[in-house]
């Protein structure tokens, strides 16, 4: 009896295996391009370690679980399960996307962190915001005003060919604010990003983070999209 059942199940499995031969590409935690304490004293090693190894890793792990469940639900044609999983996918997937960009947006001071943007991105900033300092003030103001958790972005609008400062809530990626927006620079204003060091003084964190921003990376992304 058990044998018959297992044959029936295995033939079903063959069918399902064939359908899910499109492999499930799971997310992995990207390594940090610098050591945990390399961004001190702006961001402490303790925060960097927790942020990368705990928070970002959790987003990756939970995204992968949500993806598995989504895959199963899609195969079964379970529409309500598919819809129900969207918020978990958006939250955890968004967390993974956003933090992967964030690590590249930061750079130790002795490797060029904080160096203002030159060339094309520098000119575009002057055109769209008046000056580099005006951009910083705007981003700090938006970051400080954000209630709850979220991100503040320097975005490039591919369609309008101009820069824009945007904020997103929770772990919503920048595209949720506009399909043509490309993230050049994102600053995490979730409390876990600064609380151990700056406590409730978010503005201090925002003012200091400019010392370790990797404008070279932002410039590369901009030049690629602006062609």
């Amino acid at each position, binding site marked *: 009896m058990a044998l018959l059942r297992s044959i029936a199940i295995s033939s079903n499995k063959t069918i399902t295996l064939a359908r899910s031969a499109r492999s499930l590409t799971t997310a992995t935690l990207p390594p940090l391009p610098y050591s945990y304490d390399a961004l001190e004293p702006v961001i402490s090693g303790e925060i960097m370690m*927790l942020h990368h190894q*705990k*928070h970002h890793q*959790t987003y990756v792990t939970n995204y992968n679980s949500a993806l598995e469940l989504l895959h199963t639900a899609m195969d079964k044609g379970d529409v309500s399960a598919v819809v129900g999983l969207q*918020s*978990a996918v958006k*939250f955890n997937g968004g967390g993974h996307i956003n933090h992967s960009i964030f690590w590249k947006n930061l750079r130790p001071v002795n490797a060029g962190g904080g160096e203002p943007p030159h060339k094309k991105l520098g000119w575009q900033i002057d055109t769209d915001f008046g000056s580099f300092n005006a951009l910083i003030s705007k981003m700090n103001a938006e970051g400080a005003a954000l*209630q*709850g*958790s979220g991100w503040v972005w320097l975005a490039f609008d591919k369609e309008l060919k101009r820069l824009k400062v945007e904020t997103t*809530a*929770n*772990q919503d990626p920048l595209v949720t604010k506009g399909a043509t927006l490309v993230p050049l620079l994102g600053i995490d204003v*979730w*409390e*876990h990003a600064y*609380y*151990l060091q700056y*406590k*409730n003084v978010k503005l201090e964190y925002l003012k200091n983070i400019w010392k370790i921003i990797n404008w070279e990376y932002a410039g590369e992304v901009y030049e690629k999209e602006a062609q």
Partner: protein
Amino acid sequence: MVLQLVMAPNWCGCGVASANSTKISTNAFKMSSNRFNFSKPYPGRAYRVTAYYSLTTPPYELDALEPYMSKRTVEIHWGKHHNEHVERLNKHLKTSAFYGHTLEEMVKATYNNGSPLVEFNDSSSVWSHDFFWESMQPNGGSMPKGGVLDQIEKDFGTFTNFKDEFTFAALSIFGPGWVWLYLKKNERKLAVAPTQNAISPLVWGDIPIIGLDMWEHAYYLDYKDDRSAYVNNFLDHLVSWHSVMVRMMRAEAFVNLGKPKIPVA
């Protein structure tokens, strides 16, 4: 909730140094027109008495919740975050149409059925944080007794089920939020629900019984990212079943939880 009386612009609050007040009546006991009028120190000027909210103190010392919630956390959470909400609320109230509402009324009204007005965030945060400090006590936790325990067992099966549900809801929140034990008015039973940002069961018309702040600032200094340790310690060592009992008693003025005693002939 303490209302603070603040005199409108012209009152300097210092010893009045105007020509009128230096006239001191030689017969101080006579009810003369020279008697200093505290409510109208400058005759001829118009006055408006206004009242704003102030920061209510938790009903225990700031270090009383140690080691489960450190003094440093309470100092910053109450003294900075909660305080900031009070100050911002008062700033809104200077020009808001909701000036004069009670805090609960303001929370319900400014929620505006899901399209919250600008005062919602701060008014709801002030209400929720007051509620949060009062949801805890030193040497709290362990088990409720009597009527509260009966009601919990009735609505959740067992006390452990309630704790599991509460913890699960707390850990399910995406982003900042709160987790509540609340009384559903229509169904006349207790339930657990997580909420986002500053939302509380007040906005949908039910009665909150326990509120736990799940924003990162509530636990990060003490627990870093270990939210389940925070929630477990809250349930096992901090939650004030005394407050719960008082709140349930008050709720029974609005919701009939009893079974009718139908006499058998």
